[in-house]
C-alpha cells in the first residue's frame, strides 16, 4: 500500500495530497482543491529546506502544522511531499506513528 493510500485510510485524516518539491500535484484523496494544497505545501517544504540548510540541520523529514481545530502533517519522502489534514489536531502524533512504521517497513 502506498503512503498516500495508507495515510488516507486513517479516520483522523480528512484529506491527503501528494506533490513534488516544486509543488506539482501527483495525487490526492478527498481534497477539494488539491492543486492549491500541493503548491502551498511544496513551497513551504522548499522554504524550510532552505532554513535547514542555513542552520546546518541536515535533511528535512517532517513538518507538523498545528492549529486549534485541525493540523497538517507533511512528510518528505525523497523528491515527494505527502501532506495530510488531521482532525482533531491531537491525533497528529498517532498519524506520525503510522507513517514512521510504514517507512521502517
Amino acid at each position, binding site marked *: 500500500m502506498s503512503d498516500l493510500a495508507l495515510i488516507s485510510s486513517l479516520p483522523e485524516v480528512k484529506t491527503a495530497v501528494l506533490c513534488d518539491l516544486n509543488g506539482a500535484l501527483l495525487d490526492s484523496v478527498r481534497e477539494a482543491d488539491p492543486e492549491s494544497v500541493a503548491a502551498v505545501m511544496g513551497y513551504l517544504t522548499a522554504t524550510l529546506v*532552505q532554513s*535547514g540548510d542555513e542552520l546546518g540541520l*541536515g535533511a528535512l523529514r517532517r513538518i507538523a502544522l498545528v*492549529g486549534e481545530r485541525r493540523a497538517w502533517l507533511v512528510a518528505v519522502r525523497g523528491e515527494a511531499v505527502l501532506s495530510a489534514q488531521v482532525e482533531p489536531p491531537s491525533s497528529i502524533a498517532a498519524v506520525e506513528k503510522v507513517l514512521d512504521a510504514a517507512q521502517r517497513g
Partner: protein
Amino acid sequence: METILQAILDVAGMSAALVFDGSGRLVCHRGRAIYDRSLCEQLSATLVKAIDTVQLQHEDWDSISAQYADGKLLLRRLGASAGGSHVLAVVGDASLNPSFATVAIRVAANKLRKALEAGALTQPTSPPPSGTPLPPAASPSDSRPALANTGLSWSKSSSSVGLSRIAVADPAAGTFLGRCAKELARHVGPMAKVYVEEAVRRVSPDAAFSISAASRLLDDLSAQIEDGDDRAQFRKAVTKG
C-alpha cells in the same frame, strides 16, 4: 526579554531562540555563538516566507515544527500585539527532548505575549531591510549571542573558540565570509561559522579581514574538509558565488 529566551536555552539540546515580526525583522535573539545576529536575521527572513505560505492554507495555525535529520526547528505564534504579529522560533539539536522543549516554549510564549502586550518589543533591535529608515536605537543587549555559554572547542586546530567577533574591512569581505559559512555548513553542520571565525584569525590575525585574503581563507577552510569530493564542491560553490 533576554531572560525569557535564555530560559529556553537552558533546556538541554536547545541552540537558539529568536523572536521576529510579521515582516521578517529580527526583534531579539539568544543563542550559542554560531547563531549570531546575522544568521538569525537571515533565518527570520526565510521563515517569514514559510509562515506567509502556511497562512494561505491554515490561517489559524498555532505552532509549526520541522524535524530534520540533525535537529529541529520549532515556531510558535505569539499573536498580534505591539503593532504587529510576532513569532517565536527555536532551534534544537538532535538531542532535544521534545516534551521538555514543548513545555519550555509554551512557558516562554506566554511570557513573551505578556511582554508584547506591555510593549516591550515595539522597537526591533535588528536593522530593517536596506532602504528602510532605521528605527531608534535599542539596547544592544536585546539581541546578542550567549557567548559566555558556548563552551565550544575545535580540536583540529587545538585552539579554543575565541569569543570576539570577526572584523571585516569592507562589505565584500563580509559577504564572502557569509558565503563560506553557508557552504561549509552543508558539509560540517552548525559548527561552520565557528570554523570560519577560526580560519579568519589564522589568515588575518592582525587586521580586519579583507577580500585580498579570500584565497588564503578558502585554502585554509578547504583543508578542514576531509572528503575530496566535498572539498572540491565547497571550493566550487564559494568561488562561483
